[in-house]
């Protein structure tokens, strides 16, 4: 049984005295409206302490017109008295009741009209209608006619009969705390000690509270932070770099040929800005044209300075890590960067023109392809993916290259990122003597799987309800 409210208790106390009574009576005793009493009674009924009977009583009342006729007779009765044994229609028309009464007389077939003279029909009268009008509560066909004529109204009166149950009686006999309830605890009551005598209102814990929404970080940011933490723990230094990059650092330094399709206007956001090429750019130029001093043949063809000077919105964070390498060519170096990158794509549910990329690099004497696989395996394990496998792939600036796949329960193997060792064509012109292991992955791919999103745009054009309802701590299962 739920805790009784103060009002239920007051109701039961009166009921115990009265036994069975109606709501109006109770309302007087309790100094409340009948509606309130009924509400409390229903609450008590839910607790099986009382019974509420809803009693509907029908009644008939006169309309104003009906009341006049009840006193003076129906218009047709008044006309019948005037007609007597016979009169002229003209005489009858002078009577105030003619308009309504004559129609009724004709309808009921009580009179006949011959050559302007009106006479009654033998053996017929309005007496039954008059009886019905005097006693409408008796009902019947004639009363229905009167209702139709708008002389009598049928009304319904609802009454509530409230009876205390044996359980209610028992509760009253056992004693109810009838002290007045208090909603709030005040400073005065705490200091004075009055709280001891207080009857603080008790709340129904079965009722859900109004939702409170904490301030919190974006679920996507939490995934980014998780990756940051894993890589910081693995001994990596975090990088941060500009969104606007020179083509030189975004493409050329990465040995991407100047006629590579990814460099076309269709795929990359170009800006109407140029920046001067860095010192030593000619070593990169020589590498493209002829392979410089390495065993490479280079791409051949012509390498144009103007193309390298053009600024773009970075298409990968590799443009940031390659500059970090160029500035820090001495081993060891372990660094990562998570940042937004741009592709000139039409935006839809699975493609965005801007998205977060994670990129990691390791440069050290004697690091090798096996070490790269090892780093990836540790990283993906820490992200919660138990199954990790590698397969050959192709990236213009790495050799050998690979794609990493992780196993996701219920989906299977999914591609989670690419990796490789920077080509010597990339590292040699920057004066880097050691191999550089590099890998990257699309952060939004993991976010989409983890957050169960059907539409990537939801990460950036988020529904506030989605953010509010997204728990800070997710039950993680197999990386998701």
């Amino acid at each position, binding site marked *: 049984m739920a805790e009784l409210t103060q009002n239920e208790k007051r109701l039961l106390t009166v009921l115990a005295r009265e036994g069975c009574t109606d709501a109006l009576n109770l309302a007087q005793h309790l100094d409340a409206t009948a509606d309130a009493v009924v509400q409390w009674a229903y609450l008590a009924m839910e607790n099986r302490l009382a019974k509420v009977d809803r009693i509907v009583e029908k009644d008939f009342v006169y309309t104003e017109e009906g009341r006049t006729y009840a006193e003076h007779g129906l218009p047709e009765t008044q006309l019948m008295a005037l007609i007597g044994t016979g009169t002229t229609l003209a005489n009858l028309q002078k009577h105030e009741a003619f308009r309504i009464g004559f129609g009724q007389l004709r309808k009921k077939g009580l009179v006949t009209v011959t050559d302007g003279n009106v006479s009654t029909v033998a053996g017929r009268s309005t007496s039954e209608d008059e009886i019905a009008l005097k006693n409408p509560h008796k009902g019947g066909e004639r009363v229905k006619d009167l209702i139709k004529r708008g002389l009598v109204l049928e009304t319904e009166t609802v009454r509530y009969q409230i009876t205390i149950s044996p359980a209610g009686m028992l509760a009253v006999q056992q004693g109810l705390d009838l002290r007045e309830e208090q909603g709030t605890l005040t400073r005065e009551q705490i200091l004075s000690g009055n709280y001891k005598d207080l009857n603080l209102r008790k709340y129904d814990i079965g009722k859900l509270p109004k939702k409170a929404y904490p301030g919190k970080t974006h679920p996507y940011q939490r995934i980014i932070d998780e990756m940051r933490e894993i890589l910081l723990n693995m001994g990596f230094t975090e990088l941060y770099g500009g969104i606007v990059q020179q083509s030189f650092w975004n493409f050329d330094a990465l040995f991407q040929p100047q006629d590579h399709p990814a460099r076309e206007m269709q795929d990359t956001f170009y800006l109407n800005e140029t920046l001067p090429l860095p010192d030593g750019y000619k070593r990169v130029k020589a590498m493209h044209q002829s392979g410089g001093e390495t065993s490479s043949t280079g791409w051949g063809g012509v390498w144009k300075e103007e193309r390298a000077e053009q600024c773009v919105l970075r298409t990968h964070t590799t443009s940031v890590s390659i500059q970090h390498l160029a500035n820090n060519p001495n081993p060891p170096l372990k660094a990562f960067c998570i940042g937004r990158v741009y592709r000139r794509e039409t935006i839809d549910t699975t493609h965005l023109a801007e998205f977060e990329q994670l990129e990691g690099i390791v440069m050290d004497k004697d690091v090798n392809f*096996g070490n790269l696989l090892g780093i990836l*395996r540790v990283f993906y394990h820490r992200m919660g993916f138990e199954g990790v496998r590698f397969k050959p792939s192709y990236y213009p600036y790495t050799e050998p290259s690979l794609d990493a796949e992780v196993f996701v329960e219920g989906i299977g193997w999914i591609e989670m990122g690419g990796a490789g060792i920077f080509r010597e064509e990339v590292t040699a012109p920057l004066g880097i003597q050691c191999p550089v292991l590099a890998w990257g992955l699309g952060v939004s791919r993991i976010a989409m799987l983890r957050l169960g999103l059907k539409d990537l745009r939801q990460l*950036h054009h988020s529904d506030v309800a989605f953010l509010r309802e997204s728990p800070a701590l997710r039950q993680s299962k197999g990386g998701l």
Partner: protein
Amino acid sequence: MAVITLPYKYLERLTKTDRKTILEKVPLIGSDVERMEEDHADVEFFPDRPDLFSPEGVARAMRGFLGIETGLPVYPVKPSGITFTIDPMLAAIRPVLGAAVIRGVTFDDESIQSIMSLQESLHWAVGRGRSKVAIGIHDLDTVEPPFHYIASPRSRRFVPLDCTEEMTMDEILLKHAKGQEYANLVKDFDRFPLIVDSGDHVLSFPPIINSERTKVTMKTKNIILDTTGTERKAVLAAVNIICTAMAEGGARIESVTINGVQTPTLAPAERTVSVKECNKLLGIHLSAAEMAAHLERMRFGARAEGPDAVNVLVPCYRADIMHDWDTFEDVAIAYGYERISDLPPETFTVGKPHPVQELGRVAREIFCGLGFLEVMPFTLTSEATLFGKMRRSENTGVLHVMHPITVDNTVVRTELVPLLMEFLSMNRHRELPQRLFTIGDVVECCATYQKAGGISMHPGADFSEAYAFMDAMLRELSIDYCVRESSDEAFIEGRRGDVFTGGKKVGVFGEIHPAVLNAFELEHPVAAFELDLRAVPGYPAL
């Protein structure tokens, strides 16, 4: 990415093994099986391996990988006696020509389809949409050598492929589907490239269209291949890939003489690679003989020369082998990625967060403490959102992207509050109060830096609230500041402030102007504030 159709029966005949074995192992040489149909599979290969863009090329590689036939494939080439001349005027138009005679072809639906799709894939991967390389294949028995590659007047007439009427070359660019598609590759030249035979019959108008006369049909027995372009290396690679694929299918290759030079030779390139360097790069331990055996499975000719050297003959169709490491990748693929021991490197290093990202973390903590919910808007936006709706004049440092895709993505953001306003606009139907924040990159005059913005919408939002939040943020970030009356039109006059530190304006706050609320279709007051995080002591210079 190139998706290649592999008909099972043809593939099985060429590979000399069953489809199940082939399709199970083909991803291990670098591919994705896209789908398996009843009679064929569609497999995606990487753009660096155009030699795999045909069933013949895939079969050749798989025979090696599966150990059915290893080592360098040898393709005998006899001289055909056919010659080509090149018009010197082409030097500035489309200078490079490659050609070959392919005899004894037996075409059926599948092999014609295969050669046509190889041609298309090469146009894409090697030819850069026909600009660098364009390929024409003709029935040799419809024309009479010698052939001439000339710079022709644009008024020259011939019947282009799949047409019945003669057209001038200018008309072809205007009216023919291929002419329209590739017109921009030639339209600025006074003369157009053209290949004709000794009787002045047209073979092709590279890189646009072949002539109807030389069309290849099921009855074709002998082919003359023309490949034109701007780079010798790429043109030769395309010739080699087509010739060797046709030879794999059973045809005989003959060379032609172009300006006195015999081509193609289909001869391998040679390089000597270090076993030690390969082992060191991959983290494995192979002897020279083992390394040579792995290379042979990848269809190189390979011979151990002492303990540290392997002599490698690179097949003429492997245009991707530029550097010794390219052969090492093939060793790794033959060895198997799954067999390489994956131990992380041993060098001890200490992780270090970047100060900008650390600052972001702290600012997020403050915002969350103030009850704000993080959002992560796009960085690309429009002038209308950034300035117009905000009643602000355009920031002179704003960057316009040159070829925007939509009107909503024309500039890189310079401020954050307008994007937060857009968020409120998208979430009008959600419960109030809404307090949103974002921290992230903005770009001004090519320089990237971070800002923090917060916004609060509810019936009681006002100047005092904006000021209180701004002040809390500044105090928590240890920024000494002063405030002056602002003139920012985005806010209501007398209910707006600029934040200064060290004499520099670093922030703004206030109660958003009702006209701005109207522009974003908002119905409640909004308090907003934005801070340039470079104001934080110790913010690093990029």
